[in-house]
């Protein structure tokens, strides 16, 4: 059994979607978190070291995982039958791991830099600007419906939900390719099932 530490309408929401895609046995544990406006508070019941969501606990051995790409990888490796995480030895494994690492090491910091209105330093930062990353992502998604090509994967859970979140903000750059991608991903039945469980 997987326990997902969750606060509705936050970064933990998409992990309900992932768990639904995987058909994994899971339960939601609603927790509070400290929000950017200063309301709310860290929840002592939340095992995340910084009091954030998401975090998961695996009751098989009592271990916990946090950081979004780590949770995606851990779960798609643990529940391989859904086929949304290329296995070790699969020709797409390298690309899958690269997209997960890229999400957290480049994509998120790139958008955060744009929100913060700071210039991404060439050479010393491990990431690039949104303007440099978007052509690569759009080009990839022009070749196939999903990041890995024909097959939906755990990486799409991260990228599609983030693009959906940014859709109505000034940092988003309108792109029919991205809009089509978000719609395709969020039209999946597992996403609708997850929405229905959002509040716990």
């Amino acid at each position, binding site marked *: 059994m997987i326990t997902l530490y969750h606060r509705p309408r936050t970064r933990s929401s998409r992990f309900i979607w992932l768990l639904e895609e995987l058909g994994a046995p899971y339960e939601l544990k609603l927790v509070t978190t400290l929000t950017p406006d200063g309301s709310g508070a860290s929840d002592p019941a939340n095992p995340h070291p910084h009091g954030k969501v998401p975090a998961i606990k695996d009751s098989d051995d009592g271990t916990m995982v946090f950081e979004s790409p780590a949770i995606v990888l851990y779960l798609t490796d643990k529940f391989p039958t859904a086929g949304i995480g290329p296995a*070790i030895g699969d020709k797409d494994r*390298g690309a899958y*791991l690269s997209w997960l690492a890229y999400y*957290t090491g480049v994509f998120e910091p790139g958008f955060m830099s744009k929100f913060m209105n700071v210039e991404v330093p060439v050479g010393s930062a491990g990431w690039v600007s949104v303007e440099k990353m978007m052509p690569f992502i759009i080009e990839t998604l022009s070749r196939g419906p999903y990041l890995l090509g024909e097959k939906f994967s755990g990486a799409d859970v991260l990228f599609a939900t983030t693009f959906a979140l940014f859709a109505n903000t000034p940092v988003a750059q309108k792109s029919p390719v991205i809009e089509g991608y978000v719609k395709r991903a969020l039209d999946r039945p597992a996403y609708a099932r997850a929405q229905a469980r959002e509040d716990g």
Partner: protein
Amino acid sequence: MITLYHAPRSRSSSMVWLLEELGVPYRIELVPIIYGNGEGTPAPESYRAIHPHKKVPAIDDAGKIAFECAGIAQYLCDAYPDAGLAPRIGAPERAAYDTLLAYWAGVINPIATARFRGWDKDGPTGFGTFEDMEAFLSAKVAAASPFILGAHFTAADVLYGGAVEFFTGAGLLPKRDAYEAYASRLNARPARQRALEKDNG
């Protein structure tokens, strides 16, 4: 045969170390990059087929490309498990291993860059607070006995050892006995020394 796309004294240097620890055949292909101080030259446009932003490191393993240090480390140690540099899927340490690699890429590095650039001088950035990150990192390193996941050296030590050494040297991390002891323990490894000798290609 694995090809590592590498630039001396850059983020890819830790991947030379990882490959030496892994003990599998590999070759280094040197790639020009722009360094943080503005020196260097950009890689040729043809290199974009390997890395979308013409950065290092990247690897090509018989046509399978991987980039981003955490992605490469995860890929290599799973694909070549004999060296035991990653807990197997299903092993109890796998959860902590996956978490540490993602935390390194998504928390430690952006927060260190934010501090280095002074972006957090008026308050914490959206990356999280430096103090939370440093408390987590120093607790993990202090508890390393002798390695960050316990008795066995893993790819997480390559990334965390590199971070501790680099960010301490840059004055971003405070001086702590635990950091120093961990870094010197890792530096004493023969594979680390071989990697330093091969860093220039």
